[in-house]
């Protein structure tokens, strides 16, 4: 088993003819993901990496039965792409696009929920269920299938954790990058709940960072989980008041510090790594204790 994406994923790529869309479609196809369709308005009739392109999501869904979409559309047009996907019945919408205005993200969140779909991201690296489906931009070759679920607000830091686990011979059930923006479609908490229910997942790695209260919210649930959680929080050395790249990563008014988050996670029973390299070590220990 796994969560969110699997061999049953029938993937649609929105913005498939753009530079990133083309590159990552090829990568996803190569990985073995079932990429069934692409959409670019005016692009109908083309093919990208062997994948047929349609003008509209509706057409693509009708023709190919796509059930998941990944969005590479530039920020000014990304909300429209997400609405189109949700309105067309796509159940899982993974938004890679970064720099989407927060007020648009509020609307996207609201609309997708109301349509009964789920959004991952925006500004996220996507998800991978090793050996089944790579839906995003996480390099495929660093994965190995196994018992650890990963959920992260970060992009490349996620790769770091995955690679470290794999290097130690520890595989992953599903790796989920939820995105670094203040408003994201799916929270740590929701992914933890999915991992808790997933029979394959035996331990979870949660990678957070400064800013917001998503890690604290997640900690509230970790105490109830039957599975061990290993945490890592980036930004221990970040100065208050300066935004660390991600729109969300800012310590303001003394809230959102790494210390607070580490404390919350540890209080909930998670073991928290001090450096990325420690994550794999703690995960191994957590698995061996089960």
């Amino acid at each position, binding site marked *: 088993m796994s969560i969110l994406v699997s061999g049953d994923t029938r993937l649609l790529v929105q913005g498939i003819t753009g530079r990133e869309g083309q590159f990552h479609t090829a990568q996803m196809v190569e990985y073995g993901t079932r990429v069934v369709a692409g959409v670019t308005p005016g692009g109908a009739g083309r093919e990208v990496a062997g994948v047929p392109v349609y003008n509209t999501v509706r057409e693509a869904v009708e023709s190919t039965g796509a059930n998941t979409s990944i969005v590479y559309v530039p920020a000014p047009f990304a909300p429209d792409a997400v609405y189109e996907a949700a309105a067309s019945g796509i159940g899982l919408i993974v938004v890679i696009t970064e720099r989407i*205005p*927060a007020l648009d993200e509020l609307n996207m969140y609201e609309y997708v929920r109301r349509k009964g779909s789920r959004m991952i991201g925006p500004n996220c690296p996507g998800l991978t269920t090793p050996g089944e489906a790579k839906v995003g931009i996480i390099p495929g070759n660093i994965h190995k299938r196994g018992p650890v679920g990963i959920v992260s607000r*970060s992009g490349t830091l996620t790769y770091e954790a995955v*690679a470290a686990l794999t290097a130690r011979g520890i595989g992953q059930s599903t790796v989920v990058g939820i995105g*670094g923006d203040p408003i994201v479609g799916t929270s740590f908490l929701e992914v933890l709940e999915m991992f808790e229910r997933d029979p394959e997942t035996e331990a979870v790695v949660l990678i957070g960072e400064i800013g917001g*209260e998503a890690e604290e919210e997640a900690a509230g649930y970790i105490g109830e989980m039957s599975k061990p959680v290993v945490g*890592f929080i980036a930004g221990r050395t970040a100065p208050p008041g300066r935004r660390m790249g991600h729109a969300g*990563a800012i310590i*303001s008014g003394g809230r959102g510090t790494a210390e607070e988050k580490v404390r919350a996670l540890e209080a909930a029973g998670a073991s928290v790594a001090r450096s990325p390299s420690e994550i794999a070590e703690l995960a191994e220990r957590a698995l061996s204790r089960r």
Partner: protein
Amino acid sequence: MNLHEYQTREILRRHGIPVPPDQVASTPEEAESAAAAIGGEVVIKAQVHAGGRGKAGGVKLANSPVGAREAAEQILGMQIKGLPVNKVLVAPAADITNEMYLGFILDRANKTVTLMASAAGGVDIEEVAERTPEKIVRAQADPVIGFQPYQARDVAYELGLSGRHVRQFADIAMRLYDVFLENDASLLEINPLAIVASGDLQALDAKMVVDDNSLFRHPELAAMEDHTQLAPSEVEAARAGITFIKLDGDIGCMVNGAGLAMATMDTVKLYGGEPANFLDIGGGASAEQVTAALNIILADPKVRAVLINIFGGITRCDVVARGILEGLSAVERRVPMVVRLVGTNEEEGRRILEGAQLPTASSLSEAAERVVRIARGEETPAPTPGA
């Protein structure tokens, strides 16, 4: 992106929020004639993107145009928290009966826009929120119909207002909400929102932070950015599409991805080093961006060593490697470097660097440990190749 008080005041005024008349001055003489035009007692306020300007001496009262000139002389050219004061605002000194706080924020926890208000205005609201959260009244905008007048009235009554003050408060709150949405703000506050001698409500100070990601649809706001309030290196970085924040240490960091950049700084610190900066070259960094990043890092004379940590995903290691070499051939200054390059096209990237005699590390811990030792002079690095 931060707006100055005078810019925010002008926007609020255009939206019908009662803001006392004011003038901006860049010289003491301009401040003098502004004070003369306004008449009576005036307040002279530093326009700077830093909090606590009052405590820092950036706000002064003056009873006369000459007094205003003298106050402006003292304030203009000050540095407040390291930021230069190039402009002052001259406004009538208000006879204040009562000070409140009124703001809207992007509320990530509740996924909406939320009003925050407090009967205790004029002070740092974050402090109020920290120490006496019960003194803050909140109201969330509905995702479909937005913020509504009944909510504003409700808040006004909670703050203890009555009569026309309720109507004025509600009117100001509704307009403030419109300004928030129209300008894609992430924070917009009036502090203090004061009851002045006439018995009316007035916005005596205002602050707006605009969502950087929205600037593509607000060219008029983008044009209002005051680049003197950022380190020149930060301006240069922004131009190259790089996120750069100057810190106080001596180990320059170049990383792809904000989370990994923070984790890299944390790891440097863990091994006893002090990062000189946060630098995220972004998702699909080009050779030009790598060059620009190197230039920005090395422009800091305190930097004694550089750690480059790239985990390729979208970013391809070969592109980064070529960028590093290109950058090194373009910058004059030589400092020792430790490069860690993994992920997409890792082998090719490493081959390129090693072909140029630039050594690579395979793990972040190893790289961080080494760069700290080099910065401390505990290890003599191989000479860095270059022009």
